[in-house]
């Protein structure tokens, strides 16, 4: 029982990181209108930006998160210029292949620039553990987990505020709903799409360093496995809906960690996709109640 509870907690913690990835992914897909396969590499860049802050400045978590956001934001501009700007009206597979190319480019470039080895990220948050007695079994909550969950909630709340209360947020929402109409309303669609892509990438970068802190390591090839999960979580949420994507990420995290309780740890990566396919069989539109914009 205690094991299951602890796994549930791990699941919630990991799920919240997945939720952050999925939020970023949904922002990109919603605003730009095209999917990306370079998201994992964007996360990796974010993680490395923060890693170098840890190395050269010290264990300054807020600064590292800012750096992760900034690093991925800049990569977001590059990706937008190379993969999306010219291909808004072209068939989807062209920009898709461009993002695959970018992903390959960044992955291999990172191996050259940062080195191919896995780099440790230690002692960013102290290793304190709280033991709580729940129904007669002990629940071990690490400080790290609390920090991550709180951070994700704060970031999600900030993004919600940004989308609902600021002019740029409203512009982004307008563009994600209807590009033609927002163009007629005097919105600079291309620049707004660029902004949306960059914000989504920035969130991916933050998720990247959170993963690095959670697993105590960053590496140039860390991206691909998580980009699939971000993709899956986002699809679960209906691709463009931020709240449901976050829910999808949380679900995948919990299911993965509970799944390995009943099977072997090597099956971890199956659960995300099996769950996704199961959901898609019964609800092709994901969790969203109404049929949203099909991308």
């Amino acid at each position, binding site marked *: 029982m205690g094991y299951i509870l602890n796994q549930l907690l791990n699941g919630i913690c990991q799920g919240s990181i997945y939720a952050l990835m999925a939020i970023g992914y949904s922002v990109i897909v919603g605003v730009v209108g095209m999917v990306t396969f370079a998201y994992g590499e964007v996360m990796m860049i974010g993680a490395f930006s923060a890693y170098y802050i840890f190395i050269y400045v010290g264990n300054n978590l807020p600064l590292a998160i800012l750096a992760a956001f900034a690093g991925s934001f800049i990569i977001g501009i590059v990706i937008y210029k190379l993969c999306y700007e010219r291909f808004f*009206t072209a068939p989807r597979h062209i920009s898709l292949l461009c993002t695959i190319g970018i992903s390959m480019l960044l992955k291999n470039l990172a191996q050259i620039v940062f080195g191919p080895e896995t780099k440790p990220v230690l002692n960013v948050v102290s290793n304190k553990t709280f033991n709580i007695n729940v129904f007669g079994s002990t629940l071990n909550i690490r400080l790290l987990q609390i920090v991550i969950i709180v951070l994700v909630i704060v970031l999600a709340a900030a993004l919600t505020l940004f989308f609902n209360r600021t002019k740029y947020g409203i512009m982004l929402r307008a563009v994600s709903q209807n590009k033609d109409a927002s163009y007629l309303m005097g919105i600079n669609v*291309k620049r707004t799409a660029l902004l949306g892509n960059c914000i989504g990438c920035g969130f991916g970068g933050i998720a990247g360093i959170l993963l690095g802190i959670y697993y105590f390591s960053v590496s140039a090839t860390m991206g691909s496995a998580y980009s699939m999960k971000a993709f899956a979580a986002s699809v679960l949420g209906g691709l463009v809906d931020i709240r449901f994507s976050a829910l999808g990420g949380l679900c995948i995290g919990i299911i993965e960690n509970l799944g390995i309780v009943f099977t072997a740890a090597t099956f971890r990566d199956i659960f995300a996709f099996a769950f996704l396919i199961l959901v*898609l069989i019964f609800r092709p539109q994901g969790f969203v109640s109404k049929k949203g914009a099909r991308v």
Partner: protein
Amino acid sequence: MQKIKDFYNKYKVIILLVLFVIMAVIPFLGIETLYIRYMCNIMMYATLAGSLNAINGYSGQMCLGQAGFFAIGAYTGAALSKNFGVSFWLLLLVGGLLAMLIGFLVSLPTLRLSGIYLSITTLGASEIIRIIAQTWTPVTGGTMGIKQIPYPEFFGLDMFRPQYYYYIFLFLLVLFLFVTNRVLKSRVGRAWMSIREDQIAAKSLGVETSFYKSTNFMYGAFWAGVIGVAYAPFVNFIDSTQFTTDVGFNVLAMVVLGGQGTLVGPILGAAVVTILTEALRFLESWRYVIYALLLIAMMWGRPQGLVGASKSMLAGGKIKVKEDKAKAKAEGGSAK
């Protein structure tokens, strides 16, 4: 371009025959074994890319999970021939049929899906297959993989040299091209293409879209499985790292580079990609960077692929009907 086409149509049989003879005598010309291996690689990837093209290019479904079907064929071939000594030629069929069955299962949830939902489902299926291959140790050898896969036998002749594989792959490629050409010109192929052009219109004209989409998937999966069976003894060692999603993406890159929706395209794409990755070997770790840059440059310059028709629906923004141009202006105009 038109001249080449006319010339080809006029002397079609002769050209194909000459090409076939040239391909058939190449191993006798005393070319180094290494280059024969490259040729084998090219023909193998050409068939694999062709099988993906049958799905992506002809019915317009965006399948990203070809590596999974490929893996099924490879593991079926390797496991059965190693443990039970089943003949290679029978396995070609068995592996293909098994991949076809999995293709059918994958196609079931995808019938209701389209676009990117379909892509992620096929991608997920491919990952699931790979992870099962990685963990199901008694059959697939787990992370250790399967070593020393028996060579195919041809009337008592052990086929272990690349020259023999050359003929196996050539045979498979020619068979694939011939069958696919026939299928595409039949009612089934026309149904696939009608789904690609406009699914609703196809449905209204009485094309059973679910049935044809499913058969399309099964057809593509079948050939991926067949080529997987041939791949296993060729490399003599398989493990799950050879069937990652990156392999699927690579095959997709071959299809799109060569030209979707054409028979020649995937062959050309496979040749270009294989030669490029081998020729750039001296750049060591930079070669994939260069390859990625070339891929992006290709998408910018010639999105329809090397041989793709520029008027095709899959071609992209270059040549479009007038309404689309106006729309593009409406969307893009504000940035200027």
